[in-house]
């Protein structure tokens, strides 16, 4: 009794205005019978001044009634309501969330003397229907106005009986013939409202079924309504082939159960293109389902939808339960393990973006393209290519989080991603992974010396371009794992061992095994199990490399050895036997030359002794400009 009701709330609600958490008294609650689906409860609420009868309880609150918490005369706080306008213009208030402040017992009785609120003829009070039974099967909108008009004829009468002391109950209603019909009439009217928005909201007249999950759609069931968010909308495309020409646009939608692609052709394009907006939620019903043409879509649904003349798309305001986008992000480091041409979703921070460039395709079409480098928590970087408008509009200057759904993985330059026509590119999306990435990047990510899966201009394949210094070998315990590690470094040759740099190898092609000198002019190869009168010289160098931090003994085989020394093994073999001085000279000249070494490091065990062995896989001259740029990058990173 002492809890004040929010005066004027009923009036405001009837006018369709928003009331902030009004406190109202429940005067009556009635269950509306309907054929399918959960029961619907109709409430009569009062604010002490007026009463509001066209008030519905959202089905998620049904438990309040079923557990007898909602008893007439209890006082409630309406935490969330939505206002619905029916096809005939009447308003219904749907209560989405409410708290019971005072039970009926505590309240005692009806507060005040509320009169039904009248909004010029179109009252919220229940209408009469002369016909006593009106089973609300699938009442088309047309049927609704009919009886309702008759209902309007005596609103007062109705209202009067409502404000009667007796709480509204089904049985007393039926007692009087007039009253019986209104309740049913109301029921009938109510069900279309309730039918479409299961969780309230939106006037979607005509759909009697409740909302179906996208995952349940199939071509064999034609009566369905879905509520989903548009995740990707394409632009209008026209085609012209032997059968004629036409235009189409397609979009993809997602709800809690899954996603599906929808296409509209010709006339439907005109009808729906401007209505459908990416990111918004709609009720959709009456479209054709058919097996998906996987060529045009990458969504995980066996079916796809085509809109036709009777299709209906109605905007929905209730977005709470629809996920924004269904993304299955793959960590960049894992991209190496995926097959080429796979369609994947990826998310990362855009470390850098190139300028947009214009390219002419094979079909002589000019298109814009932009390459970005994105990095994620795995520390790996991959290049993503954007096309067309997306490329032109992209701004990577703020190092935004970029999420791409449905990009194609290619093996161009190792591994790289390309945005397809059907891909969705989101910049700084509103999803938890984006926030995690942002936090990681700001804390540590920006300084990570990332390894790009996509080949850069510099030497070496993308996977192996791992710049280290010689001191890192010891500091990071490189090579200690199960697999050998590869790295590149810039180092200077300090010394190359002249002794045992050459060995006699089997002359057969591809066999480099050392041959044994049989002393009779023949050389035996154990691997080929043959004897030869000749051999080929092969180099096996033991060299000491150094940089500012450390030095390291490495092994160089034939190719890399020849690159370092600048002579072939044969020449050297010959020199060694003929001109000692010249032979020495070759080694001297190699000292203090600086190169880029690509090495393989591994912990090896030889007769109880474990040693970290480094082998040179490739020797390249130092590209000073590239090296300088890299050093500058490192300095900038350290300077942050």
């Amino acid at each position, binding site marked *: 009794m002492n809890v004040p009701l929010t005066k004027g709330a009923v009036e405001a609600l009837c006018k369709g205005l928003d009331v902030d958490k009004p406190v109202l008294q429940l005067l009556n609650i009635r269950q509306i019978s309907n054929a399918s689906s959960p029961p619907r409860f109709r409430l009569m609420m009062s604010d002490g001044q007026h009463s509001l009868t066209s008030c519905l309880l959202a089905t998620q609150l049904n438990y309040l009634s079923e557990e007898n918490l909602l008893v007439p005369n209890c006082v409630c706080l309406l935490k969330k309501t939505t206002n619905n306008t029916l096809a005939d213009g009447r308003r219904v208030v749907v209560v989405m969330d409410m708290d019971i402040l005072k039970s009926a017992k505590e309240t005692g009785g009806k507060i005040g003397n509320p009169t039904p609120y009248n909004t010029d003829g179109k009252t919220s009070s229940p209408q009469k229907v002369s016909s006593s039974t009106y089973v609300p099967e699938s009442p088309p909108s047309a049927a609704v106005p009919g009886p309702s008009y008759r209902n309007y004829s005596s609103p007062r009468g109705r209202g009067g009986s409502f404000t009667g002391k007796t709480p509204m109950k089904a049985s007393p209603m039926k007692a009087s013939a007039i009253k019986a019909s209104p309740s049913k009439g109301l029921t009938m009217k109510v069900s279309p409202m309730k039918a479409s928005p299961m969780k309230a909201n939106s006037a979607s007249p005509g759909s009697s079924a409740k909302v179906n999950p996208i995952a349940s759609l199939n071509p064999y069931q034609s009566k369905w309504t879905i509520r989903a968010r548009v995740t990707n909308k394409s632009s209008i495309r026209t085609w012209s082939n032997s059968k004629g020409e036409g235009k189409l646009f397609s979009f993809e939608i997602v709800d809690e159960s899954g996603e599906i692609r929808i296409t509209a052709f010709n006339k439907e394009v005109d009808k729906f293109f401007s209505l459908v907006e990416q990111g918004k939620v709609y009720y959709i019903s009456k479209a054709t389902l058919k097996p998906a043409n996987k060529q045009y879509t990458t969504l995980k649904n066996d079916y796809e939808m085509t809109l036709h003349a009777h299709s209906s798309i109605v905007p929905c305001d209730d977005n709470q339960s629809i996920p924004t986008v269904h993304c299955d992000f793959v960590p960049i480091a894992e991209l190496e393990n995926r097959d080429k041409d796979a369609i994947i979703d990826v998310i990362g921070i855009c470390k850098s973006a190139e300028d947009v460039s214009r390219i002419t395709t094979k079909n002589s079409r000019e298109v814009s393209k932009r390459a970005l480098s994105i990095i994620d928590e795995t520390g790996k970087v991959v290049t993503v290519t954007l096309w067309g408008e997306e490329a032109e509009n992209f701004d990577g200057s703020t190092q935004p989080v970029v999420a791409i759904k449905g990009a194609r993985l290619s093996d161009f330059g190792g591994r790289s991603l390309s945005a397809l026509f059907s891909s969705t590119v989101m910049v700084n999306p509103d999803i938890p992974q984006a926030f995690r990435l942002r936090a990681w990047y700001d804390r540590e990510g920006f300084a990570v010396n990332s390894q790009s899966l996509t080949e850069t201009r510099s030497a070496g394949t993308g996977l192996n371009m791992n710049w280290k210094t010689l001191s890192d070998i010891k500091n990071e315990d490189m090579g200690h794992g199960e697999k050998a590690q590869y790295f590149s470094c810039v180092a200077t040759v300090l010394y190359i061992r002249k002794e045992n740099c050459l060995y006699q190898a089997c002359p057969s092609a591809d066999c480099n095994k050392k041959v044994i000198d049989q002393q009779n002019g023949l050389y035996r190869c154990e691997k080929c199990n043959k004897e030869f009168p000749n051999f080929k010289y092969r180099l096996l160098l033991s060299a000491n490399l150094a940089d500012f931090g450390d030095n390291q003994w490495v092994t160089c085989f034939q190719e890399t050895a020849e690159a370092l020394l600048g002579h072939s093994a044969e020449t050297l073999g010959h020199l060694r036997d003929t001109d000692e001085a010249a032979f020495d000279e070759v080694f001297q000249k190699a000292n203090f030359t600086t190169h880029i070494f690509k090495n393989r490091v591994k912990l090896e065990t030889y007769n109880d002794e474990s040693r970290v062995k480094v082998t040179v896989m490739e020797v390249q001259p130092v590209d*000073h*400009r590239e090296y*300088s*740029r890299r050093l*500058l990058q490192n*300095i900038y990173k350290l*300077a942050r």
Partner: protein
Amino acid sequence: MASLLDTSKPRINCSMLSQHIGRGVCFVGRVEKVHPTGKTFSVSDGEGKSATVELNEPLEEELSGIVEVIGMVSSKGVITTTTYNILREDKGIPFDLELYNEALKVIHDFPQYYPFEVAASG
């Protein structure tokens, strides 16, 4: 002037000229215009800014491309040349002036890591 060659000559670009007035410097830039007398010419640095260089004797050769000028900065911001080198474009790796400019900025931003000051006695 020969003593200039014994002191340290920090590498600078145009924006640093004003801070080194009266000091010996080393300036690397691209030759822009050569004065008809041959005694002065303008150079542009990696940032695109220009400076003027004066010579004691008029030029005897065609000057083009990138040059390295060692000299002193006058109060007017003009470099009085002690000696100069031409970094020939047809030999070796082409000189990347923008990259050089980046390096210059780093050297000047972190002088503690680039202690080029050598005792004058050499």
